[in-house]
């Protein structure tokens, strides 16, 4: 028999989590379930018709969806590789320098993250503007001629990948620097005594020591890239000829432009499943820590 004191503590526990629980259920759990349900319906305004997996089947037959899926995949791979590679490079070069310098590096790479993708997209759109942008001007000066990097099917993805990478890499740099500062000093001192070069030290001590951070950065970046929207909307609108359309942009268009709520929900479900699968390794680490 549990004592009344313990029962009271249980009750208090539930009371303390209740507010969080309510918003969680209303604005997270319910939408997820509802998303699954809606993905099985054909929805036009207020009329709904159950159609089973037809939305999913029509997605697989839609070249724009396949393009969006492919683009998102390219996006994810490129961003993750660039981010992890560059952030490791930056962090491993600066982590053992004096505090002021580290904080300058951290700050200057993090400021674009702070000012948001919206603002950064606006600036890049201005810089890349084919007639009056600085980059286009510099290209003309270099004798490359008139370029329209965002209007060209071949260059549009690399440019958007670069803009996204440059705006977001700061977070990975902060995480890596923090992780590297946390590596026990004696490891590095021992290596120093053995006379290893800095490159060897980075390869054999630093990079292996921050592996869990690498996993974390990889996952949060994949998920961040999955939901990429602003940069596409403000820079290209998915064009030219769908060359830069992503899953999130495709979802948005279907939901709020073409009024295809069922189809949009199906895309959401697909993205949800991908996200959930991706977060399992991270979840494992969090729980192991516990």
């Amino acid at each position: 028999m549990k004592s009344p004191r313990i029962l009271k503590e249980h009750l208090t526990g539930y009371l303390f989590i209740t507010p969080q629980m309510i918003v969680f259920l209303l604005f997270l759990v319910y939408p997820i379930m509802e998303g699954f349900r809606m993905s099985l319906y054909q929805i036009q305004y207020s009329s709904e018709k159950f159609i089973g997996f037809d939305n999913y089947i029509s997605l697989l037959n839609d070249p724009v969806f396949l393009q969006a899926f492919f683009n998102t995949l390219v996006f994810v791979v490129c961003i993750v590789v660039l981010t992890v590679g560059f952030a490791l490079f930056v962090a491993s070069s600066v982590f053992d320098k004096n505090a002021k310098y580290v904080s300058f590096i951290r700050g200057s790479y993090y400021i674009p993250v702070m000012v948001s993708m919206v603002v950064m997209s606006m600036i890049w759109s201005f810089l890349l503007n084919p007639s009056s942008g600085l980059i286009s001007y510099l290209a003309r000066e270099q004798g490359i001629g008139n370029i329209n990097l965002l209007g060209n099917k071949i260059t549009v993805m690399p440019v958007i990948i670069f803009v996204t990478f440059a705006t977001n890499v700061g977070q990975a740099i902060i995480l890596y620097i923090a992780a590297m500062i946390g590596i026990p000093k004696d490891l590095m001192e021992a290596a120093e005594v053995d006379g290893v070069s800095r490159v060897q030290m980075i390869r054999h001590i630093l990079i292996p020591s921050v592996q869990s951070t690498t996993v974390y950065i990889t996952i949060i970046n994949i998920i961040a890239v999955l939901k990429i929207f602003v940069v596409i909307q403000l820079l290209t609108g998915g064009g030219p000829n769908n060359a830069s359309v992503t899953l999130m942009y495709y979802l948005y268009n279907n939901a709020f432009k073409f009024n295809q709520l069922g189809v949009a929900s199906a895309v959401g479900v697909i993205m949800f499943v991908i996200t959930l699968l991706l977060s399992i390794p991270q979840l494992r680490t969090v729980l192991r820590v516990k």
Partner: protein
Amino acid sequence: MMRNRIRPGREPYDMVTNVIVTFFAILNLFPLYWLWTSSLKNSADVVKMPPDWFPKDITFSNYVDIFQNQPALRWTFNSLYVSFVSTVLVVIIGAMAAYAFSKLTFPGQNVIFIIFISSLMIPKEIMIVPLFQITQDFGLINSYGGMIWPNVATAFGVFMLKGFFDQTPSALREASRIDGAGEWRTFLQIMLPIIKPGIGALFILNFVQVWNDYLWQMIVGQEKNMKTLMVGTATLMQDMNPNFAYKMAGAFVAALPMLLIFILFQRYFTQGITAGAVKE
């Protein structure tokens, strides 16, 4: 120890990489410099080629323009209001739940915590359709409530603050209980003040996140007066007006508070961002 070793930090490799890193760090700030200076140019100078690297005739007319001809003041208020209220709510309900998970025991505790944590990775954007529907059902489209509540549904506060509560000694709580304080009072008067740094970090991180939120705010705030600064500014971009200078002024206004927050609270960012990630 006569070995002639090179001290790390003095190697040529290290020096070269630091030059590269510093160079890119400065280059990385260039777009923001360009934003700032462009916003101070008049509409002719802003597209002039070759460009003025430093603005020649500094004008504030672009700023006057967006505040007079666009409801930028209203947008700023909306952003402040939505970010502030969302964040206060996140902190309150997050702290309560985090306290329960950290210091209290109740059946199902671990399972519920795991479910909360697994939701952390799921961006609300992917269920934007049903989220929009439920918001509409509640009559919250074009209202602050619609902009705020979905932002409060994150478990990030619980996750972050639990880490801070875990570090506080349980003896403190027990002492307070023995002195006859109820759980609620112990929470408010003993435990919350101890985790102030955590609350600070959460507050700033969450405020910035909501301030920079875009897709959801764009969908919910459809009326011109209900837009947040980010959304309003972005609509300037899609304007047919070819004058880039006033668009840049709008973007700068949207970025400025974040720049200030960052300069003032840099420490909190490092703390907050790493709180969830770098734990061995």
